């Protein structure tokens, strides 16, 4: 997540509770993150949008990615 933000000249806040809207992390940024994780895993992690809509904080992003990886 830090890499995605750094690539855009921004930085990842330390707290998991940080609001994604406030730090400017949009759904396409989430897509980029998921695709980077896919690259590392060498496998596709497809998912529906409703799950995405529930993501509001940095912690939610990390949980969601973890969930996808273990699914």
């Amino acid at each position, binding site marked *: 997540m830090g890499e995605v933000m750094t690539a855009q000249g921004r930085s990842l806040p330390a707290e998991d509770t940080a609001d994604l809207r406030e730090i400017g992390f949009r*759904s396409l940024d989430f*897509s980029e993150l*998921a*695709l980077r994780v896919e690259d590392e895993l060498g496998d*596709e*992690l*497809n*998912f*529906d*949008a*409703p799950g*995405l*809509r529930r993501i509001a904080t940095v912690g939610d992003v990390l949980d969601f990615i973890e969930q996808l990886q273990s699914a």
Partner: protein
Amino acid sequence: MSEAPRSEAPSAVPPASVVLVSGGSRGLGLAIVTDLLAAGLKVAAFARTVTPELTALGEKYPDHLHYGSVDVNDSAAGQAFVRDVENALGPIDALVNNAAIGQDSLHVHTSAEHLAEIIQTNLTSPLILTRFVLRRMLAKGLKGRIVNITSICAQRGYPGLVAYSATKGGMDAATRSLARELGGRILANAVAPGFFASEMSAVLGQTQLDQIVRRTPTGHLTEPEDVLPVVRMLLLENTNLNGQVLVIDGAASI
């Protein structure tokens, strides 16, 4: 092969009398089936799962409704159902392509298999069913009507609906070419509703629904009841409407 100019206008296409509705088990399809039965038409309906609502209609209209469990993607089963309908109700002279599956996933995160399934269900299978029903109609010398239920997504962009929108746009385009190809013997039109509450749109969050309502001049989402009179008109009235896509969305997209 080009058509020779006609010296006299072809006679009008009569009102539909036996209508096949795909996906008639719930949502808009069920509402269309109910409405056409109430208007005195004979109706055939299928879906993968027959619902209690459809069964209840069958009990209420035993001579006018024929229904069954058919997957639109199983063309052999679809064709067998069409033959059963002909035996039970008489020749089909109208088809409402309503069955479809929705989508709620960003294009990059939609698996290739899911994408193919959406295209198969919403575009390829309806075209195959249309082809079969048309062959039966033409072989019997019938005139008839086709109504394709498409969507505002065919004309406006919505995130999470890339493949779905492509199929609906495909059906709109097919509607125009069908109207040309069928030379006025069969009227082909499409009805493109805006979002309405159903199992398909249940994936939309309340925020999105509120946003659609706010942007709609008539101030409300499209209801299946808004769509019914338009479908009925296309099936029954003489309007010279052919090859058109009628958008029913309260001007949300204008």
